[in-house]
């Protein structure tokens, strides 16, 4: 039954992706991207990755919608028409996509218990995380303790990127307000 749910959700995802590429109204693209995120979150739940689904829903459907709408405010809301089709780009996309699909064939099957990744440090975490870190949730102990420096680095990158975006948008708004004042003076 779960495989039927997966197949249906994947079909819907593919349909929405094609629609996003073909859609010219960028406002419609924003709404379709939000729908894509909710479908993707549902698929991740069907695949038993609840924490990733939660991140996908909050980042994809929540923050991204708001940020994309704020961007639409600064740009035009219709995509420029495509003059001529770029065959080289299409060929490159197909080749890269095919190579990626080829790469997945060598991966261990979904949910396999004897996969390499489950025999490296995971048994140690499962056996000792409560004693070593005092955190009951193993995922949290890995993210915030065993890989604490890694998480600190990621947070620093996201914080810096946020500051950069805020500075850019601020200068944008200041310039436009100055232009409006000039128009008003004339």
């Amino acid at each position: 039954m779960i495989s039927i749910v997966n197949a249906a959700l994947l079909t819907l995802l593919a349909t929405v992706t094609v629609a996003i590429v073909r859609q010219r109204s960028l406002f419609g693209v924003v709404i379709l991207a939000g729908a894509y995120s909710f479908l993707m979150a549902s698929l991740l739940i069907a695949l038993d990755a609840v924490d990733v689904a939660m991140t996908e829903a909050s980042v994809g459907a929540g923050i991204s919608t708001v940020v994309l709408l704020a961007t639409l405010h600064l740009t035009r809301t219709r995509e420029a028409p495509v003059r001529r089709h770029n065959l080289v780009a299409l060929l490159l996309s197909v080749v890269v996509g095919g190579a990626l699909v080829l790469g997945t064939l060598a991966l261990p099957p979904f949910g396999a218990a004897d996969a390499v990744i489950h025999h490296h440090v995971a048994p140690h975490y499962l056996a000792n995380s409560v004693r070593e870190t005092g955190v009951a949730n193993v995922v949290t102990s890995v993210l915030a303790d065993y890989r604490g420096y890694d998480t600190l680095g990621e947070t620093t990158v996201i914080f810096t990127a946020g500051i950069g975006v805020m500075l850019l948008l601020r200068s944008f708004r200041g310039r436009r307000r100055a232009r409006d004042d000039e128009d008003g003076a004339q």
Partner: protein
Amino acid sequence: MFAAAAIAVLLALALAVIRAIKGPTVFDRALAGNSIGSLAIILLAVVGFLTGRPEFLDIGLTYGLLNLIGTLAVLKFFRHGDLAHDPDTERQS
């Protein structure tokens, strides 16, 4: 029983996706996007019971809040053309 419910939810999801793609007006798309968010919550619950582990029902609350924020942002942008709308400036102009 839950399998039938899952199939019904997936069909409703497909209909909402078709409406979101076809449009034709922004309101059709906004409503379809909102419905997709609500159906995702129901699908989360149904899949949880289908696999016999309904521990993730709480996440549906988060989805509901996100869905509300997204729809509000879209509608506010459509009404005012801006997210940080100041009602005083509109009255002056």
